[in-house]
């Protein structure tokens, strides 16, 4: 695998203003994404996990500039996306496509599948109708449907088939990067496995790079080469998928992994229960945003924001426990949750 980064994100921020009163005065900001940096290599899958409200979807949308970042840079294939005009950005989007969670809401119910799949071709300048039609038929078959499905409407398909159509639409323009935002979470287990397998096959066939945003840690492990964990608008840990699941470093990652129910009644895991709920992103805690729920909280945590630092090769974590200055309680925690299993 090449290790050339296809996408480099630096200091990405998105603050949504909170407006109040008659004059809609801005009284504060919801820091949906707050200083997130990561990169994605060509041909790999980066999984982004986190609970609702952690900013994972907002991050995905900013990469496509469906939302404009408040601050930060997104470098794709050597181009700085945040500096492009909207016309240039539109052209660039043929290389970055998106697959959405709800395949029904993202397909126009009044259009036939042929029209839905032709649209990206029209937008990106495929003028010949015959060529478009051929391509639609070709891609329907690639995603496991048949050419005759082109004449049907979205409501005539099951959830899994609709998601196949959503994937076909993303593939129509021959993209390099696909951002998949919870692509399988609306599907039944047996159908979810089909769609995940399809996505893996397509990645091989078309040398695609994926950013796979999901809340299901099992699914993310299955499909990702590297995984980033987000909490309250920040990336708290990034690592190779094997390393992250075998030896999670951040207390939040540890709790998250321990919370996932394992489909094996004989498996007993070390349980780390988190108290309380995720704080309100409009009024995040000072210092480390996780300190209100962290079982290993120290004095420094409520004062200083920990920076994402590389601890081992390719394994970065944002936590004061791993700072040399703080007392070394790390040993206690390192006996990982899953190394034994």
């Amino acid at each position, binding site marked *: 695998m090449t290790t050339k980064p296809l996408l480099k994100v630096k200091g990405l921020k998105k603050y949504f203003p909170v407006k109040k009163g008659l004059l809609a005065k801005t009284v504060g900001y919801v820091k949906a994404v707050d200083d997130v940096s990561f990169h994605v290599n060509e041909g790999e899958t980066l999984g982004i996990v986190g*609970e*609702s409200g952690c900013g994972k979807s907002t991050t995905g949308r900013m990469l496509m500039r469906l939302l404009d970042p408040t601050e930060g840079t997104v470098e794709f294939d050597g181009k700085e996306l945040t500096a492009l005009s909207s016309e240039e950005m539109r052209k660039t989007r043929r290389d970055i496509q998106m697959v959405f969670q709800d395949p029904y809401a993202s397909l126009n119910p009044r259009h036939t599948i042929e029209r839905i799949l032709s649209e990206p071709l029209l937008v990106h300048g495929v003028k010949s109708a015959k060529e478009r039609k051929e391509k639609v038929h070709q891609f329907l078959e690639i995603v496991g449907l048949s050419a005759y499905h082109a004449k049907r409407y979205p409501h005539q398909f*099951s959830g*899994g*088939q609709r998601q196949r159509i959503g994937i076909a639409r993303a593939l129509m323009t021959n993209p390099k990067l696909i951002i998949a935002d919870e692509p399988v979470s609306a599907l*039944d*287990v*047996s*159908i*979810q*496995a*089909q769609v*995940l*397998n399809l996505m*893996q096959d397509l990645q091989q066939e078309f040398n695609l790079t994926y950013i796979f945003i999901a*809340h*299901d*840690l*099992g*699914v993310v*492990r*299955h499909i990702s080469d590297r995984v980033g964990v987000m909490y309250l608008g920040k990336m708290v840990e990034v690592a190779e*998928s*094997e390393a992250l*699941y075998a030896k999670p470093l951040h207390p939040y990652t540890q*709790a*998250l*992994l*321990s*919370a*996932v*129910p*394992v*489909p*094996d*009644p*004989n*498996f007993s895991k070390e*349980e780390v*229960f*988190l108290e309380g*709920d*995720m704080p309100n992103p409009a009024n995040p805690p000072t210092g480390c945003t996780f300190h209100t729920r962290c079982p290993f909280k120290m004095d420094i945590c409520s004062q200083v924001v920990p920076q994402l630092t590389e601890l081992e090769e390719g394994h970065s974590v944002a936590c004061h426990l791993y700072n040399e200055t703080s007392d070394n309680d790390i040993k206690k925690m390192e006996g990982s949750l*899953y190394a034994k*299993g």
Partner: protein
Amino acid sequence: MDNRKTILDVKDLQTTFFTDSGEIPAVDHVSFHVKEGEVLGIVGESGCGKSVTSLSIMGLVPNPPGKIVGGEIVFDGQNLIGVSERKMRQVRGNDIAMIFQEPMTSLNPLFTIGNQMVEAILIHEKKWSKKQAQERAIEMLKLVGLARAEDLMKEYPHQLSGGMRQRVMIAMALVCDPKVLIADEPTTALDVTIQAQILKLMKDLNVRLNTAVLLITHDLGVVAETCERVIVMYSGQIIEEAPVKTIFESPKHPYTKGLIQSVPDMRYKKDRLYSIAGNVPIPGSIKKGCRFAARCEFAFDRCLQENPELYETSDVQKTRCFLYDENEVGANDDKAVVES
């Protein structure tokens, strides 16, 4: 052997929806029982009839178009089908309570938590004063782990997080000390860390109050961690029943096996997921033969012609598959393959 008393006995339940496009047997001859203090899981994919089964027990199937057309639901010796609405109202809450997937839609946004809890208590405990009811409500809120119980009584549902709302629902459901709690996808709308909290709470309460729990879910992980016994449903029928360990260690039905294999496991990476071909059938669309035959890799002629019955493969395990019919010639060869 388990000698706890059977508290809820569902016998041959049939619930059918009468629609313009025909009759849809959403629950098709379903029989099972729940023992006192037991946690029974019903697992299946969308449209398998697991939710309609629970609504049938509560007498909450929307009618029309739905109707219970046959069978018995025996709670503590009494058949609940056909009893008056008045009697049913006493059963709900007092004897059998239910919590739902989305707690926000089950709480009234216009009334405070205290208001709604007190109302629920006073409906069932007519002799109580309002003050008594309030005290009981606060006690219940504390029982489900809500620290600021007194303040919460004055708050509205929108002021609570999803996990707190689900705790309030559980408190409300348990306020009259029911014998059975039906939980329909209670944690599906919640984040994993909150899900872990709620599942732990439900297990604790099950032990402390000896309330039997009928847990309806699509998540095999949740089943493995909480249930004692499991029923697997597919297209309106029970296709397998066994203790939780048996289901995961030696599933018999090809669908159960496929389902377990298609879940990505967080503990290790599989190169490729097993996937069951085809789609989840629309309820009522398969009229003849085994409901799973079209997606089953082991299907033979008989599967397309007849619907198999539930065969007992051991004292505690039953499965709806011809591979386990002892009279089936040649089934043993295939069975060896399925079990390998």
